[in-house]
């Protein structure tokens, strides 16, 4: 499957942020919600919790572990779902491959789907499929409410969870407007050998009881120049991985200009009105490019778990070295 390694350097982060996001420009003269929150929160809490302040101040700066991202390359990742090509894998008669690819890649705990495929009844009476990974919001409500900084946004715009810090309060799950987060109510089954795996928020294996899980845009794969597991598994090439800094996107087959792809096809984001500024875009459609009829009400087939697919750590390592 296509692997695109992009080699252009961008050193000036300031410039990148200016280019990539008009919303950030607005911040210069508009009071952002973050600032209001900070001011109100700080004033209120400072008045009430003066004795605790030093500890809080010392800790609130720089939470989350250091990222291992390469200094010369600072990507701003985006996912684009071309719904014209997505037909929930029903014309192929298989479960949605994106979910299965994700399950296999991350040993996703049973009962969870980090990417979920919804069959949506549109207002015009048509039915279409909506794959929903984590939106990787630029203004992430989940990150704001986390009391311990266990969930955070890395330099490349991916919202990650540090499972060694998560206290399991589930405030982030209450805050997420897209319902993307899952909780390990039980101790999830881990593949043999996973306990010796090198845990990192970029590749959260083994899974732990009492912590929150979600899609992390395959942070471990994209930093090596690979597509996320869902995009790689999609037989329709409906999922693009994009980079805002370089304005480029690929589905593993074609390489396109990201901004043009989005503009030409009237792409939209979910719950735009909330101001979360997701980094996941959708191109409207109902799988027409693969012959899915709007009246076809067949729901997607249930995806197989990693156990059902027979994935092990060894097999994955073999696959990676090929």
């Amino acid at each position: 499957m296509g692997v695109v390694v992009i080699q252009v350097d961008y050193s000036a982060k300031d410039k990148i942020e200016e280019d990539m996001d008009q919303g950030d420009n607005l911040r210069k003269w508009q009071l952002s919600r973050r600032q209001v929150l900070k001011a109100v929160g700080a004033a209120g809490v400072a008045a009430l919790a003066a004795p605790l302040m030093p500890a809080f101040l010392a800790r609130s700066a720089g939470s989350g572990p250091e990222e291992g991202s390469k200094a010369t390359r600072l990507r701003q990742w985006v996912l684009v779902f071309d719904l014209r090509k997505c037909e929930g894998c029903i014309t192929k008669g298989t479960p949605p491959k994106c979910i299965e690819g994700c399950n296999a890649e991350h040993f996703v705990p049973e009962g969870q789907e980090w990417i979920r495929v919804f069959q949506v009844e549109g207002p015009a009476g048509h039915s279409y499929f909506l794959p929903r990974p984590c939106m990787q919001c630029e203004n992430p409500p989940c990150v704001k409410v986390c009391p311990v900084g266990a969930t955070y946004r890395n330099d490349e715009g991916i919202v990650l969870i540090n499972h060694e810090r998560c206290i399991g309060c589930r405030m982030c799950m209450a805050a997420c407007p897209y319902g993307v987060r899952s909780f390990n109510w039980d101790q999830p089954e881990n593949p043999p050998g996973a306990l010796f795996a090198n845990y990192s928020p970029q590749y959260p294996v083994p899974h732990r009881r009492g912590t929150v899980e979600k899609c992390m845009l395959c942070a471990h794969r994209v930093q090596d120049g690979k597509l996320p597991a869902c995009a790689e598994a999609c037989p329709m090439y409906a999922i693009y991985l994009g980079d805002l800094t370089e304005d480029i996107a690929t589905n593993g087959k074609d390489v396109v200009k990201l901004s043009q792809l989005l503009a030409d096809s009237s792409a939209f984001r979910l719950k735009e009105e909330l101001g979360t500024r997701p980094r996941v875009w959708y191109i409207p459609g109902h799988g027409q490019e693969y012959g899915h009829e709007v009246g076809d009400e067949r729901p997607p087939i249930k995806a197989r778990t990693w156990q059902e697919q027979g994935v092990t750590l060894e097999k994955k390592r073999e696959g990676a070295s090929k």
Partner: protein
Amino acid sequence: MRTPTAEERLEERVFRPLVHTSLGWYLWTAFLIAIIAFGLFGYTNQLRRGLAVTGMRDTVIWGLYISNFVFFSGVSMAGTFISAILRITGAEWRRPLTRMAELTTVAALLMTALMPVVDMGRPDRVLYLLRYGRLESPLVWDIAVISTYLTASLIYLYLFVIPDSAVVRERLRGKVSRLRQGLYTLLALGWKGLPEQRKRLERSAGVMMLLVIPIGVATHSVVSWIFGMTYRAGWNSTIFAPYFAVGALYSGTAMLITIMFLMRRVYHLEEYFTEKHFRYLGYMLVAFGLLYFYFTFAEYLTIGYKLQSEDKLLLQELLFGRYSFLVWLGFIGGQVVPLLLAVRRRTQTIPLLFVASLLVNIGMWVKRYVIVVPSLANPLMPYQWGFYTPTWVEMAVTAASFAGFALVFTLFSKLFPLISVWEMKEGWERAREVAVPSQAGLAARPARLDSDPGGPRHE
């Protein structure tokens, strides 16, 4: 034989439980401890097997624990608050009930603080909240404000325990163990009733009663913001802080009436907790209840008028759907009926006001539940409604939290007078000064005035 003075009668009455312990007390305490032990058993089960033993799952991620958290936080707000506003406004009838009110706050806050820890997926990491606490998180505001309120309430409760401890030590010398005698000596801080000491006590109480009001309001406001800071239908509301605060006053007042009624029965405090006190608290209940009704109305009218898609789904389920029984139980049973009982002269009897307070307690707990659960069950994406049925573990822990709440009162009643003796005496002294200004302090008996603190009287 001379008749005992009011002071002597009061001391006799409120010190009695400190010395004499009935069999009933032991049975009751054993009962409470049994419930707590069962709750602990449930909790160890949860520790061993994870939150999977609860009814919570990925859609409805919070349940009974968080409902209890909001409920106890609400109860905690009212106690100290009522005591403080009545002190500030110089309402003389407050005197016999301030201690009960302040104790309610402390007991409820202990349970409030416990509930989120019970709800945590990783209780072993609870200290991370202090180590890594982020100011941006409403949960951290909560920790700050609850610990502040608990500290302030404990100080506020303790202030008037200082002179009482000195009196208890004197009166019960030789009747209680040396350990307890030592405790009273320690808590009395060398109190001798000197003018200088009295002045300091007055000043401290003055500062504390001004402080606890904003802290109390802040506590319940911050609790509401755990919900109000999210986008969820039913929670995404700008009026949540005052809405919760008013609800807290309402449910806390009811809890105070319930507790006063029970203590009055158990420790025979009829002479001090009179019908007047219940009636006045009933008026407060009506005032807070009407305010609460106003907020409820404003909240649901604005949602119901616009009927945004997610709000509409929620409202349908609340008013007519799967939660409608609970919602209407909370509204009619917890708001309409109790207010009718408290507002009509004919039903303003102590037992009926007790019934009204019980209804409010139940109604407000139900209300907390229907704030927490349905908004979580309401689908954010095109999927099915979430389901939630509490398991025995959650119910056991809930029962234990209520038993723990009751146990605080039970134990306190054996250590300290349930009525602030100091405040009562102060009230009588003041009344005497008003009655006989020329012979201030010389009167043999307390005068019977309108400002009578509700002490010995035979209506």
